[in-house]
C-alpha cells in the first residue's frame, strides 16, 4: 500500500492507494492533524509499503531562471548561484531544464525551472517519521506533485492555468504554464458563518490572478481547476463571476478507481501517488537521510570489503588445510607401508646380517696384496692398521725408508705415497708424520679405502 501525505499547515492530508493489475485504486482518503500522524503511522505500519510526502507551501520556492546557454555543468553552477542570490543558502533545491527560449536577434537562452525547500523545514518533516518503520522515499513540494497530477489528467497546457484547492483553514492556489510552476500562494478560508458566500476567498483568488498578471505582464490565467472538500457551488459561482476565467471542477475518475466522493480526494496526494520516482525531478532527500544513506552505503561497502577479504582468507586457509590433510594422509600411508616392510624385515634378520656383512666388509686379500705391491724395496713396514668407521675404512701405516742417504730415503717415502695415490683401492692418502733418524726416515701414512 502506498501512503501519500500532503502537509498543509497543521493538517496532514492522507491518501492510501494500491495498484491492482497496473491500475491505481484508492484505499482511503482522510485528513488528520499533524500531531496525530505518528499514531496513524503506527497503527497502519503493517499495510504501508511506501511513503511519499509533499511539504507545506511555506519555506518552499518555485522559480524559473532564464540563463545564457552554456555547458550543463556550468549551467548547473550558474543556477546554483542564482538560487543562492535570490533565496539564500538555506534551501535544498532541484532543477529542470525546460528548454531554449529564443528571442529574435539574440543568442538563445535556457529556461531552468527550480523548486526548493528549506533544509531545516525538510529536516523537521523528516523527523515526523523518525519513529516510523517505513521512511518516506520521496519528499517534494505540493506544486511539484500537482504538476504530475495535471500531466496525468491531460490538463497540462502551454497557457497559464491555475489549480485551486479549497480547504479549511487554508486554501492553496498554484499557477502552472506547461511544466513551469509560476506562482504559489496559500489563502485563508473564513468560517462559513462569517463568510457564507465565500466572497472573501473569491476575492483573494481574484487578487492572486491580478498579481500574476502584474508579475507576468503578457500572460493571463485562462483556466482554473477547482478541488477541495470545502469547495461549494457558491465559491465556484463567485469565482466565475469575479475572475472571468474557465472553471473546471477537479475530476480524477479517469486515473483512479473506487472514488465515491470527489471532494474527499486530495489532489496533492494523488499527484504523489501518480509520480514516477525514476523520472521525477523534484524529489528531495533530507540532509540527515543523505548522511544516513551515505553512512549505510559506506558501512555496506566496508563490510563487503571486509567480508570479501575474510572469505578469501578463509578459502585460502581452507585450501591449505585440505592440502595439509592430504599430505598427512599420504604420509600416514607411507609410514604404514614402511611399518609393514619393517615387520617383514624382522623375519629376514639373518638375511639382513648376511647382506650387511657382504656389503660392508672389504675384500681383504685384494687389499693386502695391493698394500704389499705399493711398498717399494727399501721400505720396511712397522705396522698396518685398518679401522671401520662411520665414513668407511680408515687405514694407518707406520714404516721406515732405509735409503743409502737421506735424499734417497725421502724419495722412497714419496714413492710409497705415490703408489698409494695411484692405487685404485686407496684414497685421501696423506703422509702425516715424517721423521729423519740418521739416514733413514720414519713415516706415518693415513688413507681411506675407496667405495
Amino acid at each position: 500500500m502506498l501512503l501519500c501525505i500532503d502537509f498543509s499547515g497543521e493538517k496532514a492530508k492522507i491518501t492510501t492507494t494500491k495498484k491492482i493489475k497496473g491500475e491505481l485504486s484508492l484505499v482511503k482518503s482522510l485528513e488528520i492533524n499533524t500531531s496525530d500522524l505518528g499514531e496513524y503511522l503506527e497503527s497502519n505500519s503493517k499495510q504501508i509499503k511506501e511513503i511519499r510526502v509533499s511539504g507545506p507551501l511555506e519555506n518552499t520556492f518555485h522559480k524559473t531562471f532564464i540563463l545564457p546557454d552554456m555547458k550543463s555543468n556550468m549551467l548547473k553552477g550558474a543556477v546554483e548561484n542564482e538560487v543562492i542570490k535570490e533565496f539564500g543558502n538555506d534551501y535544498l533545491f532541484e532543477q529542470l531544464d525546460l528548454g531554449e527560449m529564443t528571442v529574435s536577434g539574440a543568442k538563445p537562452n535556457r529556461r531552468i525551472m527550480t523548486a526548493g525547500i528549506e533544509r531545516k523545514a525538510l529536516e523537521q518533516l523528516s523527523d515526523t517519521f523518525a519513529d516510523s518503520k517505513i521512511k518516506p522515499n520521496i519528499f517534494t513540494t505540493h506544486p511539484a506533485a500537482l504538476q504530475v497530477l495535471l500531466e496525468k489528467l491531460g490538463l497540462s497546457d502551454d497557457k497559464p492555468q491555475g489549480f485551486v484547492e479549497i480547504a479549511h483553514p487554508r486554501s492553496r492556489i498554484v499557477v502552472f504554464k506547461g511544466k513551469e510552476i509560476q506562482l504559489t500562494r496559500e489563502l485563508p478560508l473564513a468560517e462559513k458563518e462569517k463568510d457564507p458566500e465565500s466572497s472573501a476567498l473569491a476575492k483573494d483568488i481574484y487578487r492572486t490572478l491580478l498579481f500574476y498578471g502584474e508579475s507576468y505582464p503578457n500572460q493571463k490565467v485562462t483556466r482554473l481547476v477547482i478541488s477541495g472538500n470545502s469547495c461549494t457551488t457558491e465559491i465556484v459561482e463567485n469565482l466565475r463571476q469575479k475572475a472571468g476565467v474557465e472553471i473546471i471542477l477537479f475530476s480524477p475518475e479517469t486515473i483512479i478507481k473506487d472514488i465515491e466522493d470527489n471532494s474527499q480526494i486530495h489532489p496533492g496526494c494523488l499527484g504523489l501517488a501518480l509520480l514516477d520516482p525514476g523520472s521525477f525531478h523534484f524529489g528531495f532527500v533530507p540532509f540527515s537521510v543523505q548522511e544516513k544513506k551515505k553512512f549505510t552505503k559506506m558501512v555496506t561497502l566496508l563490510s563487503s570489503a571486509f567480508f570479501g577479504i575474510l572469505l578469501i582468507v578463509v578459502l585460502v586457509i581452507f585450501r591449505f588445510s585440505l592440502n595439509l590433510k592430504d599430505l598427512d594422509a599420504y604420509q600416514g600411508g607411507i609410514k604404514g607401508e614402511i611399518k609393514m616392510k619393517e615387520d617383514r624385515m624382522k623375519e629376514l634378520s639373518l638375511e639382513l646380517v648376511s647382506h650387511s656383512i657382504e656389503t660392508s666388509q672389504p675384500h681383504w686379500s685384494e687389499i693386502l696384496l695391493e698394500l704389499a705391491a705399493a711398498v717399494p724395496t727399501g721400505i720396511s713396514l712397522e705396522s698396518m692398521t685398518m679401522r671401520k668407521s662411520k665414513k668407511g675404512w680408515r687405514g694407518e701405516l707406520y714404516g721406515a725408508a732405509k735409503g743409502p742417504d737421506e735424499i734417497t730415503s725421502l724419495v722412497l717415502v714419496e714413492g710409497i705415497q705415490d703408489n698409494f695415490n695411484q692405487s685404485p683401492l686407496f684414497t685421501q692418502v696423506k703422509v702425516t708424520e715424517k721423521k729423519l733418524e740418521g739416514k733413514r726416515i720414519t713415516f706415518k701414512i693415513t688413507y681411506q679405502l675407496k667405495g
Partner: protein
Amino acid sequence: MGKVKGIIAVFAILLVLLFFFGIKNIKSLQGQIGGQKENISELDQRLEKIRNLEESLELRRLTGKVLPQIPRVEDPIANKILIEKFFKSFLTRLGLEAEVKVENERKSRDFPDVVEVNEVPIKIGITSYSSYKQVMNLLEEFRKFPLSIEILTIGGTDVAVPGVLRLQLKYYVVPGGA
C-alpha cells in the same frame, strides 16, 4: 563525520587484524605443508631403500645365500664358551696360533631397531703366521660366517690382545634364528 571516521577506524583495525592473523595462519600452514613435504620426501626415500633391501633379502632367502650361525644354547655363558671354542678350533684348523677373547653378547646398534640382532665382540691375537697367504686365507674364511671385522692390525697395538696380527670382530647373532 566523527561517526564515519570511527567506523573507518574500526574497519581499518579489523582489516589489519584480519591481515595479521590471516597471513600468520596462512604462513604457519605453508610452513607445515613445507615441513610435511620434506618429511614425505625423506619417508619416500626410506621406503624406496627398504623396498630395495627387502627385494634383495627375499632374493637372498630364495637363493639360500645366508650365513650359518654357530649352534646356540639357552645359557649365555655356555654360548660364550661355545663361541670361544669354535674360534679356537677354527684358527687351529687353519694352522694359526692365536689367543681369543670373547665378550658378553649385547644388542647390536649396526642394524635398524626393528630388526632384533645381537653382537658378540671378539678379539683375536695371532701370535705367528707362516705367510701372508695364510692371513688372506683367514680373512676370506671369516666371510663365510656372520662376522664383521672392526679393526685389523699387523704389528700394531690397537686391539688389546697379544699377537702380531690382531683382529677386533663382531659376531652377529639373531636370537631365535636358525
